[in-house]
């Protein structure tokens, strides 16, 4: 009740100002004292305006009150009356010819826009606060040392708090190792393929080839990760298993290799589009200078273009890394659940994101270490990607400053 009336009241106030400014301008154009910037208006007219405009506000309030059938509470009605009185006061204050409606309007718009830009900052702050808060709660139950350097991960299902062994063990090293392995597999596929694709697109491809290849890569990057996850489970995993069996290897259905390689395919377009941008931004004069000296296109690319674009390429790689670390659906579907500290990519491993999903899927209680450990993992994940992003963004900025 109060909120809509507040919104309505403020809206009407702005409308009033607008009308009044228009009226003032018309008067001005009729030749009333343009020198001083103000012109007199008799007292009765001013009051008339106040009464008329507030009549609208009052009518709106009444309609609102009837629509909601009853005043919600005493406090609500007093608040509404207060707002009404405030509206009267503001009317009196603003309904003068000295009032610079345009400046006030501009100020309001700027305030509104500035407030909306606050949302981005609030979001970051909320992420940091909520993760820190819940992670702190977790670290009161489990020591940070055990979490960061323990090698045994089995967050037990605590069905009842008095059950024995309900505490579980939270050594996250197997998760970090699994994440790292998955990321390394994905990146060892995505970085070379993406970089070479970008080299082809920016240096060799004709206009026509670019016209066709760019959208294909965009489609590849637009496919949701849940689809890649299904692709990994339904196509790549059986294919790799058969291939492994042919060579006498046992490839598990849920192996790091399957999830990692599909993740690599998913990241190719990210790397290629970022690298394409930085490679295309290398000034043509550098390239043409090298060509004029008789270098082949291979020598131009490896000797001039890539070194010139290296900071940008490295930052693209860093962004790809942070993307691979945070990727969730592919690993949830195609990698394992059990924490398994191994260096064999043919065995199932689990990652930080898989554990977050597995811990929080279904009902949660916010006082059990099982739920809170997901936040501790999220905290680690967020700060790793944050660091990566900041480094990458600074490098891209430095690179842009170099050639723009």
């Amino acid at each position, binding site marked *: 009740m109060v909120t809509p009336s507040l919104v309505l009241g403020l809206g009407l106030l702005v409308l009033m100002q607008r009308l009044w400014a228009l009226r003032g301008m018309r008067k001005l154009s009729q030749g009333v004292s343009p020198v001083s910037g103000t012109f007199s208006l008799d007292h009765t007219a001013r009051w008339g305006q106040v009464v008329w405009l507030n009549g609208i506000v009052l009518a709106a309030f009444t309609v609102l009150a009837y629509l909601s059938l009853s005043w919600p509470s005493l406090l609500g009605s007093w608040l509404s009356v207060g707002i009404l009185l405030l509206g009267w006061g503001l009317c009196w204050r603003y309904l003068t010819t000295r009032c610079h409606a345009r400046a006030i309007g501009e100020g309001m718009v700027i305030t509104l826009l500035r407030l*909306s830009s606050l949302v981005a900052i609030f979001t970051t702050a909320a992420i940091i606060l909520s993760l820190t808060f819940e992670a702190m709660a977790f670290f009161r139950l489990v020591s940070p040392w055990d979490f960061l350097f323990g090698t045994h991960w089995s967050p037990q299902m605590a069905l009842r708090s008095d059950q024995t062994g309900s505490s579980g063990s939270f050594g996250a090293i197997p998760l970090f190792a699994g994440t790292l392995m998955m990321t390394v597999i994905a990146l060892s596929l995505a970085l070379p393929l993406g970089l070479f694709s970008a*080299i082809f697109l920016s240096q060799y491809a004709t206009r026509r080839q670019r016209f066709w290849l760019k959208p294909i890569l965009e489609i590849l990057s637009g496919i949701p990760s849940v689809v890649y996850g299904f692709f990994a489970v339904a196509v790549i995993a059986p294919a790799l298993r058969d291939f492994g069996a042919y060579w006498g290897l046992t490839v598990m259905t849920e192996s790091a290799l399957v999830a990692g390689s599909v993740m690599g395919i998913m990241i190719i*377009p990210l790397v290629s589009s970022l690298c394409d941008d930085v490679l295309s931004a290398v000034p043509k004069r550098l390239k043409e200078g090298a060509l004029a000296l008789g270098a082949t296109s*291979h020598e131009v690319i490896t000797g001039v273009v890539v070194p010139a674009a290296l900071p940008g390429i490295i930052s693209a790689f860093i962004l790809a890394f942070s993307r691979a670390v945070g990727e969730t659906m592919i690993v949830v579907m195609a990698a394992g659940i059990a924490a398994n500290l191994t260096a064999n990519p043919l065995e199932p491993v689990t990652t930080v994101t898989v554990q977050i999903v597995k811990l929080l*899927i279904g009902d949660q209680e916010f006082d059990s270490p099982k739920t809170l450990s997901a936040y501790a993992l999220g905290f680690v994940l967020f700060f790793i990607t944050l660091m990566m992003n900041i480094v990458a963004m600074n490098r891209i900025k430095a690179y842009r400053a170099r050639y723009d």
Partner: protein
Amino acid sequence: MIDHKNRSFYRRHWRDRVFRRVAVGCVGFAVLALLTLLTSIISQGWGAFVSYSVEIQAQDIPPNLPSSDRAAVVAIITSFLQTPVASKQDVIRLFSADAGSQLVAWLKQPQGPLRLTLSDDADMVLKHSYQDSPLKAEQRKILNDLKTLGVVRRNVHFTFFTAGDSREPELVGIYSALMGSLLTLATAFVMAFPIGVMTAIYLTEYAKPSAWRTWVEININNLAAVPSIVFGLLGLSLFIQFLGWPRSTPLVGGAVLALIILPTLVIATTAALKSVPTSIRMAALAMGASKTQMVFHHVVPYSIPGIMTGSILSMAHILGETAPLLLIGMVAFIVDVPGGITEAATTLPVQIFLWSESPERAFAEKTAGAILVLLVFLLIMNALAIILRHRHQKTWS
């Protein structure tokens, strides 16, 4: 001497050719990956859109049927086959759990032939002729007999588009998940669009270069690269635990997705606003427009195609988003269409995830079918964005 020089020349150019071929091969790999993905999903998913059923004409139905609907189905089939059947269970398991109610509905209003949907196992055997199917040899024989009698028909499987989730693969549909997606996306759009556009307008048109602006920009660029699962954690603790919004609902899902697309929207809108040339702004100001008039009467209208393109693309991006929705509980088993944004719902990608976890082979087919529907929607949205971009692309000279 000349020979030596020539050798080096050839070696350099040979390297050049190899390098070029490696680059072509890498692009080729990406294209190949896309083609493999699409063909494998189409080859697995086409079956979700067709189903087999048994159609029996009215004159072939015996007059006095047993009162139980399942027994009646068995009676109809055995009398039609005119061969003794070893086990009634074998017959009834060939048909969907829905067959009994289909018979009852037909008996109430006997128009045309009686159509009984086959079970998922029988359906899969007819579609792919698997050898390791869970069907018994007797069941296969019955199925073959029915087939030779010409009553097994292939139909478009409309149930897939009109039903919700189910335990039986032959009865599942994507309708409720699709509606959940729609509600969630609408919520996200309503929340994110005004804030995103206003932030972008502020950053490009109003904010002077200052520490504040840099801070906001850093925040936005960083949020764009935060893993989406972190937003899921935020949604769980902020919206559900702290604000007490109802779990598993499009309201919470939409709010989380809105936070995810906000940076993308801001970046796209900023690019669109920046592409409007300064001369437009100067002209507006010179005619006496205030800054707000200049922005909202001139700059924003010119950049609307760009803003629309950006928002359609970001909508397409969150249409496929799954992980954060798992955390806020949108993984419920939803049969009915959600009635509003405060009712439990699931979305299409989450439904895909849920079905992909099911062990039955028929669910793999449904998963791929749902993926095809999702990809068609994404394709439509992307095509729309591209058309918008091309049609309204203004070249400022």
